[in-house]
């Protein structure tokens, strides 16, 4: 099949060394494109390398390279002699004719050669995407992970046959026409362990469901996958892309759990995919006390500095049949100290039972048993803290 339009032309102009500067003459020879490499290791740019045979004569040769209907970064175009590099075939300069998508190489040649050259350039609008498809088992302990490479060619150029290179893995032969999209499986990993995470971030979610007037507060649910050898992965960074997650329903079928987009995941790092919201874990958080203490007044009896005495309670109910671990993120602005923190009345210690993610963010892992015949499993977090040295606004 060769219905493609030729949009890229390499034209060799052989100039007698008369020193005559003349209007450029088009089309003397049209060397066939030889081996072509499409290199997709850079997510922003696609590098094309193509080999052609140029018939060069002893002396100065001018080679005209022009293109139309394609978007080439003119500054990226390179030419390399493969058979006689160095002094025998030397690129003297590159000139750009006015108002044309073209350039002219001036090449000095020691003899008459049919020289194999490699022309490389950055071509726009040909790229690749990565997508993931994961099927979790029914108990949600692992996923069978597949990753697909999607090649999109909207460059204006047809590639009959090219070697496609990614930043890892074997190169493969692939032709792709202009406006064609191809999807190929390129990674398959079975039984990749997952951790399921429920997260309540007090800065992002409503505190009191009652005030929402008949709307549920969904607790975001994510799957965590570690890109390491234990997961059957870890050989290379996982490229960012859209992931669709399914679950085996135990009836020889699957349900769709949700989709998310992942960034690049280096080896050893975690991929976290948000799949949907749980409405079976309900958090009701209220501020039960918020008063000023230890006030300091200036000479005008105006309060210029105070501390606060604040109490926050969060009731967490699990209506699910299964146990869950809720990651609860709490935020206390400014300078503060915790007077007492309890879960179900039992004191929790900072650094032991819960951790400080940064100066103003606390992370609690609340283990919730499954609902039983008496009703939902419930736990209550209480934080009694003081913000210090607050200045009135």
């Amino acid at each position, binding site marked *: 099949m060769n219905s493609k339009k030729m949009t890229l032309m390499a034209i060799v102009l052989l100039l007698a060394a008369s020193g005559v500067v003349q209007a450029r003459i088009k089309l003397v020879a049209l060397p066939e494109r030889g081996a072509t490499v499409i290199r997709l290791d850079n997510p922003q740019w696609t590098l094309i390398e193509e080999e052609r045979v140029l018939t060069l004569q002893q002396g100065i040769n001018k080679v005209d390279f022009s293109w139309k209907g394609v978007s080439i970064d003119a500054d990226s175009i390179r030419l390399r002699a493969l058979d006689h590099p160095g002094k025998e075939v030397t690129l003297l300069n590159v000139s750009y004719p006015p108002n044309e998508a073209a350039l002219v190489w001036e090449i000095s040649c020691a003899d008459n050669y049919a020289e194999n050259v490699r022309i490389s350039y950055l071509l726009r609008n040909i790229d690749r*995407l990565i997508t993931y498809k994961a099927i979790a088992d029914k108990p*949600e302990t692992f996923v069978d992970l597949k990753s697909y490479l999607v090649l999109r060619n909207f460059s204006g150029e047809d590639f009959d046959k090219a070697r496609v290179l990614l930043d890892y893995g074997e190169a493969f032969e692939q032709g792709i026409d202009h406006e064609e*999209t191809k999807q190929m499986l390129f990674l398959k990993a079975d039984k990749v362990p997952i951790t399921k995470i429920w997260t309540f971030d007090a800065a992002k979610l409503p505190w009191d469901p009652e*005030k929402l007037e008949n709307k549920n507060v969904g607790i975001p649910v994510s799957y965590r996958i570690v890109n390491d050898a234990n997961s059957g992965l870890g050989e290379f960074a996982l490229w960012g892309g859209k992931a669709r997650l399914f*679950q085996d329903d135990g009836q020889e079928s699957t349900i769709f759990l949700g989709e998310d987009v992942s960034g690049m995941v280096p080896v050893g790092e975690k991929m976290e995919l948000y799949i*949907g919201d749980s409405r079976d874990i309900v958090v009701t958080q209220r501020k039960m006390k918020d*008063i000023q203490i230890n006030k300091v007044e200036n*000479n005008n009896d105006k309060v210029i500095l105070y501390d606060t005495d604040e109490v926050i309670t969060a009731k967490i109910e699990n209506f*699910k049949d299964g146990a869950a671990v809720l990651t609860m993120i709490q935020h206390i602005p400014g300078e503060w100290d915790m007077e007492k923190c309890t879960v179900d009345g039992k004191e929790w210690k900072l650094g032991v039972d819960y951790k400080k993610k940064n100066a103003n963010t606390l992370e609690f892992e609340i283990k919730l048993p499954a609902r039983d015949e008496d009703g939902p499993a419930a736990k209550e977090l209480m934080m009694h803290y003081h913000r210090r040295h607050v200045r009135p606004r």
Partner: protein
Amino acid sequence: MKRVIILLTIIATSHLAEGKIDLVTLPERDSVQLTIYNSADLTLVREQRSLTLKKGWNWLQLSWANTLIDPTSLSLEPLAGGDKLEIRQLVFPARTQQVGQWLIHSQISGKLGFEITYFTSGLSWRAFYMGTLAQDEKTMELAGYVRIANNSGEEYENAQTRLIVGKVHILDQIAELAKRNYPYGSPIPVPGERGGFGRASGRDLRWAEVDHGLRQGLSCGYGGGAAGFGMARPKEIKKEGLSEYFLYTIEGTETIADKWGKRLLSFEAEDIEVESLYKYDEERWRGQTIRFVKFANDEEHNLGETPIPNGNVKIYRQADDLGHLSYVGGTSVKYIPVDEEVELNLGPARLVSVEPTLMVFKTDNYRFDSRRNIAGWDEIRTWKIEITNTRELPIEIEITRGFGTAYWTLVYVDIASVADDAISYEKHDATHARFTLKRTPRSKWTFGYTVTTYHGVREEVMPK
């Protein structure tokens, strides 16, 4: 009438590049399964077809013109003999639309079973409910229904139909993906088309009403194996929890023609004990008393088998002993997990009222700074709360009062001499108190409280 078909063309090629067509077949679906979501315009379709492959390379072409299929979701898997088959790639050819071609290498020739899965837009379902209160309003019957609509452009015959209850996270609307000129978009922006993988702008499906869908009766059976011998019965819906979702599987198969809808009974529960609950909270309802019907999604209330999906509720009441009904009101119910309490908001109450009246206002305990400006004071308000229940039923009422400050104390005042019921209040949060009390039928009752709020330096008198 089948408006749209999925065309399967098998092209066995001796030489890959030549694309010589050897065989064209149009295999029927062997079976089809629909898994329809209600939180997004999304249906997972899984169909099984038998295809005849030749040994060597085969092209399998699928076209889906005039449907709402998301081409990025297309997946082909062999049902058996997977080790003899390699699905090399899926090609969306240049200068064609709504066509995909799988390149398959087969080590065997003959008829093989395949499963094709994809997402489509246009199928939807929703839950809705009808509650019928007994005359004394102590119990209620509740019937839950699901209503499925097909606006997908495709007719699904004898499909196993499953419904998903849950809030699924999606990035792109399936309908938008289905309308793209190129399945994965283009690096060159196309006017009116979003690029690749942005976030969905909204997630709720607009429900397209299909009125003639109501022609399907509630309890007449729908064919497809549900009816058995003798009297037909409504189909059962099997419910099962999976991950954060509930999966409803409708017994047998359904045929859902394009643009048609179908209503099915999901559950029926009788003798659900309900409480008539009234709430008064000026900050939420601007002085109106709001009526609720309260029960729980648990065994004690003859429910609790599965969560109750969100949907609209219509509440009726038995008007007399002859089975006539009166319409009480309509509302919507949020998703109710198993064991959680349900409060159906029936709107403003006509027969129960709460009237707070400010009886005393005074200020006290002024403090002055060194310049003799006011630095602190107390505000003391005594409120009379009058509750009128003109109903012939006992009621429970919840009154929430806000004070606009976290510095307050409250004491009861014996305004009325009636003290047959103990009232209690709890600190609802830093700035609100909540009173709950029960009242007898046809009664008027008054209670009072004095709230003191502390301002300026007087805030310090608050107990630590």
